[in-house]
């Protein structure tokens, strides 16, 4: 019964939170409408037949979030320095990273991380070979980038989603 009305409880809860934030209110009417919207939109979402995400070790997501925030901050400063100094000898290029991660949700989070961090951009993901191609603005050590992405981001994502 619960499964039927609440196929995606986390999604419904998130929609309710978004609704309350948008309305800046915790009045009973807002909560009621938000709950109804959360349930209805989650049912619509179910029609798309998305692959179900299995989230294990959710505490790792918090750790990953803090780590990504720190990295975004640091690479903002690094890219700002590159732009302001007009570095001539800078070498940028593509790096191919063999991935162990195949879960679609994990890959989506990895895409958000890599694109949100200034200095790296997700270029292409080859799902047959499971190789990710990224572009790095200030490329000094290719193997270093592969290790960073795999150790810092892919490993926690593997533990959470796969």
């Amino acid at each position, binding site marked *: 019964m619960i499964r039927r009305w609440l196929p995606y409880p986390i999604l419904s809860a998130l929609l309710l939170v978004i609704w309350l934030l948008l309305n800046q209110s915790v009045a009973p009417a807002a909560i009621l409408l938000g709950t109804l919207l959360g349930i209805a939109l989650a049912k619509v979402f179910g029609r798309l037949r998305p692959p179900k995400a299995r989230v294990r070790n959710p505490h790792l997501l918090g750790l990953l979030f803090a780590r990504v925030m720190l990295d975004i901050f640091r690479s903002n400063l690094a890219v700002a320095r*590159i732009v302001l100094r007009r570095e001539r000898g800078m070498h940028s290029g593509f790096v191919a990273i063999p991935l162990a991660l195949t879960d679609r949700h994990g890959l989506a989070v990895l895409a958000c991380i890599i694109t949100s961090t*200034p200095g790296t951009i997700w270029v292409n993901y080859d799902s047959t*070979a499971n*190789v990710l191609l990224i572009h790095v603005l200030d490329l000094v050590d290719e193997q270093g980038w592969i290790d960073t992405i795999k150790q810092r981001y892919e490993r926690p994502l593997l533990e959470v989603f796969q």
Partner: protein
Amino acid sequence: MSHLDALPPWAAITVAVLVLLGALFAFIGSLGLLRLKNFYQRVHAPTLGTTLGTFFMLAASITCFSVLHGRPIFNEILIGVFLTLTTPITLMLLVRAALYRDREEGSQDVPQVTTSE
């Protein structure tokens, strides 16, 4: 009367500093679009505006309106969440289009197709 008159000095200074910092990062990002040499380098620059630039602007907005209304107001966080979720889509479309075109033209600067795609 503008909103600034209603703000106590400490809040006005904090908000002003945050807005300026946000604008600075957005500006450096735009400057990067001008200064960097090729397409793949240039797409990196605007991410400054969508990350720290947005962060400081949102922090300024949250501070300003929380002080003005006398209660915590943080619906700006939603802007940050939606930006983080949607920028990768545009950037990936742009970069993949550029890569496709360069590969079609047989450019030596981009990696060639490794397997059947």
